[in-house]
């Protein structure tokens, strides 16, 4: 059992290296793997290939990897906390909150910068945090929130926020194009500054979620059970939900709305083991692989034009998700551990 987990992590790590290499090779200008390795090892000489690689493709690939892993870990956390293997940042409205923040930043263009951070990520994360606060407040009665009421509040908040985004975009028609470009999502604008901006959030989020991985295991059995096992439930739950908001906010602000990565990757990794000490790192790796590959595909389908990466993830993830949930339903109906069990 432990061996299988280790092997899975190793395989995913190798897959990430390979997909990064593949992604670095693909694009409008074809670069051979040997050239890539040479350029990476030697660093920035003045050759044009090395320039494309180090200044354009490498930050892009890294941003894709960071975004993918952030979304996947966020999804893994939310699925565990809400005891629902189909939950994700979209379902509870966090993504919409982050989007509204980002859209407001684009439209209002406020001259805000804190500790070298631009307005976009700050607004985006604030949007994610505020949404979580409101959703938790709306769904809890006397300090306790049932999973069902949380999901319902999330769906309601999501619908409301989407309407606000539309209204804001409509009212400020002069900036519609920029909003639209951002909302499609993608990594074409990736620069080293953006990578460096997203990286700390990603590292902090993963560290936090790993520290609370065992609490998350207990929470999947229900809040009462977690409390009976000595978990400080309000603390664990708050840390985990805020961590998910942080990861989602940073991912959305740097890359727009990229769907299904957060929902599908933890779902797949859970086939090996639902233990979050394994699930969080493996989802991070798998989410990175999926997003890096999706970005490579969207650059190579009809060069030099690009397809928005969110379209690729939705086209692949959507049907896959339907397949997974139908399989789960069938298992639930016929298996002894199902609802009737």
């Amino acid at each position, binding site marked *: 059992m432990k061996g299988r987990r280790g092997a899975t992590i190793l395989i995913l790590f190798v897959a990430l290296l390979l997909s990064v290499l593949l992604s670095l090779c693909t694009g409008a200008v074809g670069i051979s793997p040997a050239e890539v390795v040479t350029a990476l090892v030697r660093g920035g000489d003045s050759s044009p290939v090395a320039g494309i690689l180090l200044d354009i493709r490498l930050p892009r690939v890294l941003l894709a990897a960071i975004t993918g892993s952030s979304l996947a870990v966020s999804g893994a956390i939310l699925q565990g906390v809400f005891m629902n293997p189909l939950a994700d940042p979209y379902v509870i409205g966090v993504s919409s909150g982050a989007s509204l923040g980002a859209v407001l930043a684009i439209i209002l263009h406020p001259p805000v910068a804190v500790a070298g951070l631009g307005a976009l990520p700050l607004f985006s994360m604030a949007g994610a945090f505020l949404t979580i606060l409101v959703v938790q407040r709306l769904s809890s009665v006397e300090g306790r929130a049932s999973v069902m009421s949380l999901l319902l509040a999330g769906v309601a908040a999501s619908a409301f926020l989407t309407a606000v985004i539309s209204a804001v975009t409509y009212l400020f028609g002069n900036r519609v194009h920029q909003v639209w470009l951002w909302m499609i999502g993608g990594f074409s604008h990736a620069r080293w500054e953006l990578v460096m901006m997203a990286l700390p959030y990603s590292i902090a989020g993963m560290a936090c979620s790993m520290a609370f991985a065992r609490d998350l295991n207990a929470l999947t059995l229900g809040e009462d059970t977690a409390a009976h*096992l000595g978990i400080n439930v309000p603390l664990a739950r708050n840390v985990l939900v805020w961590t998910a908001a942080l990861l989602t906010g940073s991912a959305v602000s740097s890359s727009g709305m990229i769907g299904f990565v957060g929902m599908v990757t933890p779902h797949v990794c859970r086939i090996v*083991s639902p233990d979050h000490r394994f699930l969080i790192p493996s989802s991070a790796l798998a989410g990175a692989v999926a997003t890096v590959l999706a970005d490579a595909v969207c650059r190579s389908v009809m060069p030099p034009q690009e397809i928005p990466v969110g379209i690729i993830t939705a086209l692949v993830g959507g049907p896959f998700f339907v397949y997974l949930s139908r399989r789960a339903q069938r298992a639930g109906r016929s298996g002894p551990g199902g609802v009737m069990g």
Partner: protein
Amino acid sequence: MIRIAVNGISCAYGCFPALDGVTFEIARGDFTGIIGPNGSGKSTLLRAMSRVLKPSRGTVLLDGRDVYAQDPRSVARRLAVVENDGRSEFGFTVLDLALMGRLPHLGRFQRESAADVEMARGCLESTGILHLEGRKITEISAGERQRALIARALVQEPEILLMDEPTSFLDISYQIDVMDLVSRLSREKGLSVVVVLHDLNLASQYCGSIILMKDGRVLASGAPGDVLNQANIREAYGSEVMVVRHPVHGRPHVIVLPKPDPAARPRPVEKGRIHVIGGGAMATRLMGMLSARGFSLSAGALNVGDGDWSEARRLGATVVEAPPFSPVTESDMKRNVEAMVGSLAVVLANIPFGPGNLRNLEAAAEAAWRGIPLVIVEGDGVACRDYTGGRAAASLQRLESAQGDGIRVIRCPDDEAAVLAVENLERERGAVVSGEGRD
């Protein structure tokens, strides 16, 4: 040594009160059952005791200190809970689940040691599911999951174990296994057990004391013999029961009686009265059948406290009573004959006859001489249940040889046939009555 003291706690869900001023104490090694009808607050009580639902009034003291003021990990090292419903969407293995019981003993970044794993496997073995250790909890049966939850609680190495309906999904063999296991731990290691049970007889068999709850309050508490009686159970559940001594362990054994069928209650035609001779709860079923068919009943002579005595009274029968555990006297017999006269028939249930109740048979014979038909439920034959040295059988024989001339003896193989025979007598009477009306 008092481990848990529950001091006048009240809890509410919203404005709906679930517990109202509950007080009791649990000492080391106590085995306490909590019983009561659905919605009486049993599970809420467990939640309040396990640091999950803070009472709005009163306190729960664990080892003398308010449990809500203590660190949850330290509480979980002493107190474990077996929840009733262990369903999960997440496919942890049975061993994973059992190992979660080590959580309160491990630091945040400390891994489970080989010793922890061995211990978890030992607990799986003692609950009989070690062979399932690699299976996912989403893929095993509810009964197996229940045993996995018990194993997880034992892995916590608790000193106090709270269990919410731990046997609800188990077959009778595993019910006994699980109760024997915790009962042994309670005896040998001083584990204090508090268990919510629906099965009153399981509670009676295993618990040293029982708390009977109703509407969020403690209705009665104490030894099973003090709590499990007709009056308490009627008040708590609204059910009619018989409480007998269990033939093996001697504790109270509760037999639930069928609720009177409301459809059978209205009696369109007032039928005749049937006098039943029973005893030792042997005529309970027969009286129920007769009553359901609209006959009114009388019975006797019955010792006060006998199973048939309480059933007859429940059915509204006129009962000729004899003192508890004493033979039927001459005067009882006289009153019995008086009760038989005027009845449609006397039914002699499938009961053994001894010196104590031979006078009941003699009373039936006396009534038969006076023209009251006697219906005998044969069962295995009267001779087989004659412990009077043949006097009972001889008396019946004499009666039968004098048949005709207004004396009727009808032998029936079983209760059903006896009811049919009585129905026939009722029809005959009806024909006579309506015939008389026409004259």
